[in-house]
């Protein structure tokens, strides 16, 4: 990964110097090496601060909206999974192709520092990956974990190492993650519950929410000028009362809202400070859409219309669809 970071810096410098771009979107180190954050780099010097390691989960795609507005050609580094979000933004006409230069950036899975800490690693000083092992250095000694144990949940549903959009690719593609199981397993487990159990599950989950809006802010499909939740004219409007529709049904509405446009990146669940399993709602819609209307992956390309703005004459009726899911 360190090698990739070097390549990124070199590429950023090259593109800025050749005037192919005015700006670079990449990651900058945070307080610790494991809390890297998205950042914009406007000149060659600044580019030296670009970092890349197993702790760069954020998708930079959404920052391209600003680039498009400012009409500034921007270099953006995209991990394979990030490219789906870019395509979705293109499809939604929120970004324009002429204002960004996409550099495919290899990824072998991002790690979840929370998991590492939960497994007992304290005061982490260094983390290195070797094949499927993660070695964690702490003042109290070295700990070793299987990668599977400490990968981000979203990386356990990795879509592979292909870039769906890229002007060029940096270095060689890395081996795709090997622990990908059935991404709908958790959804199926809930489906198998009784109605009462399902209700109890969601009541438990959704009651944790503090309405911080992190889930919507991170989402590459949530890119409106003004969010419906902030629009008084919208059918969900009405901020005042705690018993309002918006308050009670926020997650259902949010998930429905991006149905057909959600690329399944898992970022919403990752950034939730309360650990609400809200990504399952998105996955449920993806599963239903695949099952009712045929396989569809949002962000696969920038042109195919979403299943919610298309139809077939022999689509299943609502009741039929629910039963068919079985």
């Amino acid at each position, binding site marked *: 990964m360190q090698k990739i970071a070097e390549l990124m810096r070199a590429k950023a410098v090259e593109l800025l110097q050749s005037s192919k771009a005015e700006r670079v979107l990449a990651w900058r180190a945070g307080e610790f090496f494991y809390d890297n954050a998205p950042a914009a780099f406007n000149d060659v010097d600044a580019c030296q601060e670009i970092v890349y390691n197993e702790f760069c989960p954020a998708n930079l795609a959404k920052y391209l909206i600003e680039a498009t507005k400012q009409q500034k050609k921007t270099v953006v580094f995209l991990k394979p999974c990030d490219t789906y979000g870019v395509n979705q933004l293109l499809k939604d*006409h929120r970004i324009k192709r002429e204002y960004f230069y996409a550099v495919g950036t290899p990824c072998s899975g991002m790690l979840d520092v929370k998991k590492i800490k939960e497994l007992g690693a304290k005061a982490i000083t260094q983390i290195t990956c070797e094949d499927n092992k993660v070695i964690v250095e702490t003042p109290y000694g070295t700990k070793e974990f299987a990668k599977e144990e400490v990968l981000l949940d979203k990386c356990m549903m990795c879509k592979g190492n292909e870039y769906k959009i890229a002007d060029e690719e940096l270095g060689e593609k890395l081996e795709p993650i090997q622990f990908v199981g059935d991404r709908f397993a958790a959804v199926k487990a809930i489906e198998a519950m009784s109605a009462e159990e399902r209700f109890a599950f969601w009541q438990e989950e959704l009651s944790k929410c503090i309405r911080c809006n992190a889930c919507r802010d991170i989402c590459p499909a949530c890119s*409106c*000028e003004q969010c*419906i939740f902030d*629009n008084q004219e919208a059918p969900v409007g009405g901020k005042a009362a705690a018993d309002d529709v918006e308050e009670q049904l926020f997650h259902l509405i949010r998930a429905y809202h991006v149905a057909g*446009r959600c690329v399944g990146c898992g970022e919403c669940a990752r950034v939730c400070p309360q650990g609400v399993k809200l990504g399952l709602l998105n996955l449920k819609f993806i599963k239903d859409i695949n099952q009712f209307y045929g396989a569809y992956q949002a962000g696969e390309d920038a042109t195919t219309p979403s299943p*919610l*703005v298309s139809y077939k004459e022999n689509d299943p009726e609502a009741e039929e669809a629910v039963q068919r899911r079985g």
Partner: protein
Amino acid sequence: MQKIGVFVCWCGSNIAGTVDVAAVVEAVKKIPDVAYAVDYKYMCSEEGQKIIKDAVEEYGLDRIVVCSCSPRMHEATFRKCAESIGINPYMVEIANIREQCSWVLKDVKVATEKAIQLAKAAIAKVRFNNPLHPGQSQVVKRALVIGGGIAGIQTALDIADAGYKVDILEKEPTIGGKMAQIDKTFPTLDCSACILTPKMVDAACHENITIHTYSDLEAVSGYVGNFDVTIRKKARSVKADICSGCGICTEKCPARKTPSEFDEGLRNRGAIYIPFAQAIPKVPVIDREACLKFKTGKCGVCSIVCPNGAIDYTQEDELITEKYGAIVLATGFELIDLENYGNLGYGRSKNVITSMQLERLTNAAGPTEGHLVCPASGKEPKSVVIVSCVGSRDTSGRGKTYCSKVCCMYNAKHAMYIREKYPNVDVTVFYIDVRTPGKGFDEFQRRAVEEYGVHYVRGQVGKIMSDKEGNLTVFASDLNSGRHLMLNPDLVVLACAVKPAKDARKLASMLTASIDTNDFYVEAHPKLRPVESPTAGIFLSGMCQGPKDIPETVSQAGAAAAKVIGLLAKDKLMTNPCTAKCNEQICSGCLTCTNVCPYGAISGVEKEVVTLNGTREKRVVAVVNEALCQGCGACTVACPSASMDLQGFTNKQILAEVDALC
């Protein structure tokens, strides 16, 4: 502060009989902003409207709620009333307390409570109503009539005579329709062809009429005043402009195994054929499925004998596009097939025939040159049984639930002209009821009995059997005498139910015209708008709307034409102002909405907009073409940011109703 007036109609006893209207008035008076409320016997009457107008003046009302019948009945009336006193017509809401309340409920307390709630919902909605102003759209001064039977021809002639261009679209190779097949017409017994063919010629010669025969409707888009239509002119395999209509090809064609549609299968026609002598256009057509040239590559006789070289085996279907302001459906009818009535022996014995076959058997231009014979033996019958209601008034699933309306009269006609020409032939009509309302109709039917000695037996036939020689045995009941009969007629005529043309449903889908479960087109109102489809700009003429005889069809054709003329006479149409509207300030320009608009009314336009921060910015936003938008609202739901809203049915209005009812 808003000033809402609520007007509660009794509709005589229709509403007041079940709803305590005074209680409704009292209840709504307590609602904030309701400045005035009153009930009256007939709000739609002039006196009722005056009450509304006076109240507006006296109380300075700015919004009106009428609790009355369905808005489909009188919304327009009350909107006009509001407009006449300076209130924007779209500031009116209707609470439907008749169809949805007094007519479906019996208990006064329950009905009154529901009426109050419906009134509350309407009041909740009207608070969010905004004045709306209809736009205008151009009217294309040309009409399309689909179907070239008597209904279509008459409609087209009436429109053309008024000075407008009109096209007739006919799927068969000739216009004329079913009336051309009929021998004589009731109640005058005059020759059908003699009165139809001059009209066919008129239509063909009319400078304002263009006829497309052997053609199908391929695609339709647009809306009232502006329909874009694609017509498929099927390949005739004969060059119409060169053909002289001499008919040599039709005589020489060696492939003669196809039953003639026009003669109801009573004789065969060639693969190249002209349906009948007076066909218009008199240009043959090659039935490619029957033609040896097309099937085997060998033959080509027609092309050899044609003196003009008009045969063209390579002709292809042609697609033509045209714009129309109005479309008339005149697609007519056909007889039901009798597959569910195997007990009647149709198809098993040639001597059991349909009424339409009888028309061809008695027609001088028919397969027997008008000699009535039994098809099996070729001999004149000695006795004929006519069976009414075959497949009509049948709710068992075998036939049609409705009365076909024309059979009683044509049965009398058939019986009469058999007796007229062959006084020795005994004719018995089995009937359930004889239904002959209409001018001179009952008199006509009575003549069959009184002057022509036709036997009318109240009863029905059961099984019809035939032996090896084709002799028929008919079991029947005679209800008036309580007897069971066994007869041996030589010919049985089945008065089959009529049904709408096969492609009626397909056309309804293409035109978004309403259609009922029997595939008859639905009129906008059964009494007050009988020749219009609920879809603006689509009109109905003839049997396609419901069973009717020729005089009725011709009247309806004229009525449909008058409606079309009324439409085409306008230069511009007021468009429905309840269109989608984009809030450009928050529109992100994602253009998801464009995917679901059936009219292509939304486009992305780069505009300078004021952002939410108050700054100006140039970006793409969705813009609705109000002339194209029909106001379905699909875009409002597709829009992720709720910047698309539907005027007249805004999110706020609908949610206000939801809140008021929950």
